[in-house]
């Protein structure tokens, strides 16, 4: 059997088969192609958002991971230890003497009064 002669004959028969393909199959193939192209391109022929997201899926995943990390950090970060506003109010109402902020070694005993602790 001559390989090429047989191949030529079969190719011709297969091409005839394509021409005789039933209308329903043709219509379904056409619909499938339209569906694929519509999902990938906008009507003006440019890549749609979905197509871009699919093409650049690594970047999209990195952005999503970053957003997730920031959200988790914001939700789980520790609260500040003390609220400065509360301390200011206590100072103004004389509940805390101003010397409490001073360095022990620079404070004279008479400035602090009898309640102050002494350090030896």
């Amino acid at each position, binding site marked *: 059997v001559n390989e090429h002669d047989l191949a*030529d004959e079969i190719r011709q028969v297969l091409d005839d*088969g394509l021409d005789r393909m039933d209308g329903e199959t043709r219509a379904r193939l056409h619909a499938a192609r339209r569906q694929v192209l519509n999902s*990938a391109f906008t009507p003006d022929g440019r890549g749609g958002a979905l197509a871009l997201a699919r093409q650049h899926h690594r970047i999209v995943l990195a952005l999503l991971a970053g957003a997730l990390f920031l959200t988790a950090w914001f939700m789980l970060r520790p609260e500040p230890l003390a609220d400065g506003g509360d301390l200011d109010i206590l100072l103004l109402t004389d509940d805390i003497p101003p010397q409490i902020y001073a360095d022990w070694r620079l404070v004279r005993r008479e400035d602090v009064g009898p309640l102050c602790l002494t350090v030896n």
Partner: protein
Amino acid sequence: VASSQEIDAFLAGVERRAFKHAAFAVRDHHSALDIVQNAMLRLVERYSDKPAEELPLLFQRILQNAIHDHFRRAKVRDFWVRLVSPLRDKDEDNGETLESVAAHANAPRQPGPEDEISGRQHIAAIEQALSELPARQREAFLLRYWEELDVAETALVMGCSEGSVKTHCFRATNALAEKLKKKGIQP
């Protein structure tokens, strides 16, 4: 980079051939349509940024992979079906491969008296002979002689050596000639 119009035109030109490739392999109309649509989708999603002249080879490779994926999924599905169906009749399990079972179940209808158009019968006989070829032989034969890829391109699409392509084509030709002779069609 291929424009959307170029991709549309390319797919319109290959969709029917692609359907036939898939139908010869899986012998199921709906599965073949699904395979072609998946192949189109993969091409557009992953390779729409490629030049138009690279699309034919890429599409053939995607299509062949989609056909292989179909059989892989069917094998997995079959495994689970066997596992979870203890009431299955043991006589059914006769050691045939999934492909041969599916082929037997979905074998194309023999042309009956209503299909008297000789051309149609001729086409059906040759298409059936092609369907009955081993998968790799059919793949090589169709890519080489229907898609008119050269040996190197066929090897690239099939993921094998050029020597294997030549061997598959040679065996396919002999097998086809034998089958057609049995059907009374003289090549």
